[in-house]
């Protein structure tokens, strides 16, 4: 029996502990949300620091499996490499900001706010587990931990008419996708004899390092397994055609909660996809890349086309999220070579998405589901700060130069071209232009049009102001979008190293 290395699972421990602490404190002492905040943000800060420490540790001693003994193949459940460390940093930072942005919601939930905070912390732990898992079963557990918490979060505001519908759809479809993912794990296991990825896992099997005579001739099972893994994770990141839950859930869920649900799940989902495809099966890239490219193409086209037709901001962002999922998958057709591009895109996109949803929460209220585009009419005159921030988010999401979105797009397309998928890059670029239409439309509404002054549905005369929490979130989102647009080099250099083992 060897010592357990705690650093790789440190963040999870901290977060789970914090979640329990919040629950217990809430049950036993009525200290209010300040206490929850203290606990959860300390935990998140700690998690970020631990992830950072992981990065440094990997720098020093190289990637590690948390527990690796000769011949004990089942033992190494978690992998600590730059990939997981970066995933930790991004997930925790995004999640911390998301939680901050959700704080008006937490306050409005009163006592039940603790539930929300605890669930959020649990889901964050699950999200990071997805990225750090070295075992597909652990990945599944992380996925479920995150998902189950998010199902609840989706429906947390029970008074909101559509939130139960959102939760129900999310739950049913999510469970369905999880089951499919799990079946994929089982098939991979049947095809390779392993559920872990490294250290005598499927990666070695595919590399040909692991000769398991028993599974000879079962490539088909393995392939079907990979396909189902992609489906399960594709659902999480809302890639087409597994995306249909996203618009309904985003629109139905409380404005304050969507940021965490969307941004967090996207980051972890993509980390997991990259881990599975580029980490576990890089050598089968020629087999899976065309189908991933097809999913990517379908996602960008379908997401963009449907986003054009939307009249609700959150729905529009959901569809645009489908398109963005497609863009990130575009990078992954290059397997490992595409991972840095994916990371750059992912880590900046998460902030933009968070920023946009936070504005939606500020404009339409943290508990409300719908966020009609008409509410943004003439916003520039009513709330210049919100409008300007939203403008930046839209431009960055659209991928215009001097925003992080542009650098991200160039990166993913370059990766695709490098991998020989020029057609995918062209499809992506042309759709990106079509996408410009709906991002620009938000700016048109905010800047070029007057607010509708008459009373009635679809009108807006209020001058919403972001809360202080939201201001911080927005500040960071703008800083990331513009900062990494103007000076992307630090992040670009960082992500170069964040390859899966």
């Amino acid at each position: 029996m060897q010592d357990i290395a705690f650093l790789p699972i440190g963040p999870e421990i901290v977060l789970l502990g914090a979640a329990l602490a919040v629950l217990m404190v809430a049950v036993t002492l009525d200290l209010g949300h300040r206490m929850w905040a203290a606990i959860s943000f300390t935990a998140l800060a700690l998690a970020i620091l631990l992830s950072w420490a992981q990065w440094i540790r990997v720098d020093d001693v190289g990637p590690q499996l948390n527990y690796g003994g000769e011949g004990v193949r089942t033992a190494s459940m978690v992998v600590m490499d730059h990939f997981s460390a970066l995933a930790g940093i991004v997930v925790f930072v995004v999640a911390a900001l998301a939680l901050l942005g959700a704080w008006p919601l937490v306050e409005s939930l009163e006592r039940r706010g603790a539930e929300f905070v605890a669930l959020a912390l649990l889901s964050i732990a699950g999200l990071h587990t997805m990225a750090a898992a070295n075992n597909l079963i652990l990945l599944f557990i992380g996925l479920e931990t995150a998902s189950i918490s998010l199902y609840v979060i989706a429906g947390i505001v029970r008074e909101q008419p559509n939130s139960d519908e959102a939760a129900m759809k999310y739950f049913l479809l999510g469970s369905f996708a999880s089951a499919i993912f799990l079946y994929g794990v089982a098939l991979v296991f049947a095809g390779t004899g392993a559920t872990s990825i490294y250290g005598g896992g499927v990666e070695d099997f595919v590399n040909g390092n692991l000769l398991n005579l028993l599974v000879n001739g079962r490539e088909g099972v393995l392939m079907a397994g990979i396909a189902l893994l992609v489906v399960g994770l594709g659902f999480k990141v809302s890639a087409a055609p597994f995306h249909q839950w996203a618009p309904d859930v985003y629109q139905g869920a409380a404005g304050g909660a969507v940021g965490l649900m969307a941004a967090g799940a996207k980051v972890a989902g993509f980390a997991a996809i990259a881990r599975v495809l580029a980490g576990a099966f890089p050598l089968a890239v020629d087999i899976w890349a065309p189908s991933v490219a097809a999913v990517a193409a379908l996602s960008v086209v379908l997401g963009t086309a449907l986003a054009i037709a939307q009249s609700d901001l959150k729905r529009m962002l959901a569809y645009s999220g489908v398109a963005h999922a497609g863009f990130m998958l575009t990078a992954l057709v290059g397997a490992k070579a595409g991972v840095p591009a994916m990371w750059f895109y992912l880590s900046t996109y998460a902030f933009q998405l968070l920023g946009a949803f936070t504005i939606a929460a500020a404009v339409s209220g943290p508990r409300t589901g719908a966020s009609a585009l008409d509410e943004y009419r003439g916003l520039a005159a009513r709330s210049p700060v919100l409008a300007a921030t939203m403008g930046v988010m839209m431009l960055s999401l659209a991928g215009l130069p001097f925003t992080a979105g542009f650098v991200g797009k160039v990166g993913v397309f370059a990766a695709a071209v490098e991998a020989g998928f020029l057609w995918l890059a062209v499809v992506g670029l042309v759709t990106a232009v079509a996408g410009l239409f709906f991002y620009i439309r938000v700016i048109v509404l905010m800047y070029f049009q007057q607010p509708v002054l008459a009373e009635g549905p679809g009108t807006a005369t209020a001058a919403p102001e972001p809360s202080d929490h939201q201001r911080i979130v927005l500040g960071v989102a703008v800083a990331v979008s513009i900062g990494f647009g103007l000076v992307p080099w630090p992040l670009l250099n960082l992500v170069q190293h964040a390859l899966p083992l």
Partner: protein
Amino acid sequence: MGYLWLVIALPLAGAVTLLLFGKRIGEPGAGTLASSLVGAAFLIALVGSYDFITGSGHAEVVSGFAWIPGLGIELALLWDPLSSMMTLVVTGVGALIHVYAIGYMHGDPRYGRFFTYLNLFIASMLILVLGESFGVLFIGWELVGLSSYLLISFWFEKPSAAAAGKKAFVVNRIGDFGFLIALMVIFAEVGSLSYGTVFEEAAEVMTTGTATLVTLLLLVGAAGKSAQLPLYVWLPDAMEGPTPVSALIHAATMVTAGVYMVARTGALFELAPFSAGTVATVGAVTALYAATIAIGQRDIKRVLAYSTISQLGYMFMGVGAAAYVAGMFHLVTHAFFKALLFLGAGSVIHAMSGEQDMWKMGGLRRLMPTTFATMVIAWLAISGIPPLSGFFSKDEILAVTFDKGGWFVVLWVVGIATAALTAFYMTRLMLLTFWGEPRWDEGVAPHESPRVMTAPLIALGALAAVGGFLNTPFRLGRLGAGLEHFLEPAFEAVEQAHLPAAGTQWLLALVSVAAAVAGIWYGWRRYVERELPAEEGGVWDSLLAGYRVDDLYGRALVLPGKKLSEAAAFTADMKVVDGAVNGVGALVTRLAAWLRPIQNGLARSYGVGILAGAVALVVWLLASGGGS
């Protein structure tokens, strides 16, 4: 000869000064300044020409600076007898007309501006005639077009004047289109636009075909500027401009630019006999054609306008027949007598308070003696009555044409017929204006024009009277053939047409004088009566309307052009091209709307999507990787 630049610089400086300070300088300072600058330019040119007159001068290129280096166009001037002659005519006649205008434009609110334009014109015209390359020629060519535009529409409040100016510029541009292409071909062939290089190398590098092409294109340009068929239509309308403008630009100088260009490019026309013949033919046909229209005009200036077109036809006939000296000779004499006619007409119009209809004149000869006397000289001169200037120059053209034989004899016949018609319509003009009973409108009190206007008339009258002796065709020793000797160096490189033998010359002269006398006689008979002929209906209406060519052009070119433009703008562009663009946008929106029902809200159908995607992916991966 560096000071040659002054010839251009002086009027140009005048134009700039008057543009900026014209209003402040006022009347008559502006006119005086402009006139004296042109006069000074004339004197300089005269000094420069001295060597040519004595026969000791030789052509010189006065270099300026590289204008468009890539095309090898230098802003250089060529000072040879041809350009010096043109310069003298332009500045000389120009100065007289400037002086005249001091009186004529009296009281005009834009007095200073008028002289700005006049000076600008003189400078432009000098650039045209003095330039040493096709490039510089083209600058002048366009700038005189500009000045002409500005001056025709000088009274722009009158819509007809504004339209006339625009018409002149646009029709000229059509001619320039040909000119421009000619320049392209020349440049492509020779790699230079300098006269020296082009003329030297043309014979070697150009095939007859190319030379013909180039010269025909040049002819298109010349026909535009010199108002030849079929591009003459702008000139009658150009009479909307103040009369000094008509005299200066549309009689004496600018319109002769085409003739000058053909003469200047004789070396090219020499390579293309067909083009030369075409020039002569176009000239002859235009001469006759315009003369017939002149007969039917009632507006005194329009008679003169058509007369100018007709006389320019003569010149074309001359230069087309390679009788460059004769052509240029007629150019000079025509400048004298036609400027005189216009100024005289202007004097009459001035006196009649702006009335231009000859049917409302009559009996002016006693009231305006100076005008009348000088007009008589011009009348006889243009009719070709010896020994006045027009006789000699016209006769020389006709004689040379006849001598070429063949087709040119036909042109000679046309020329003689034109001579008779010319005499007739000029007689008609004179009789209607100066003889007979006054038919004035009420309130019109004709009077002789002020001295500042009559003085130029007298000067021009003198020139028109004796100008013919510049170059008598009868070769009375060195003195008689002055112009020919003067111009000889300019044309020594090209083969010129010859005068026929002396006997034939006498005979031909007799025929043309007879034609002139016949024309005058018939005109006298017809119009000296108290009762004027009606001259209405049928042929007369058609003549008055210039054979309704304007209508024809309007219906055949302008209207369809406008229709086409409208179709292009409002159908092709808005509906088709832009429609396609907006169509793409609409298509995307349509696609989006069409896709929306997929998202039907039913969780189970979303599940179908997931399952379908899963099955597809499984099948795909099995197909591509599961086989082996």
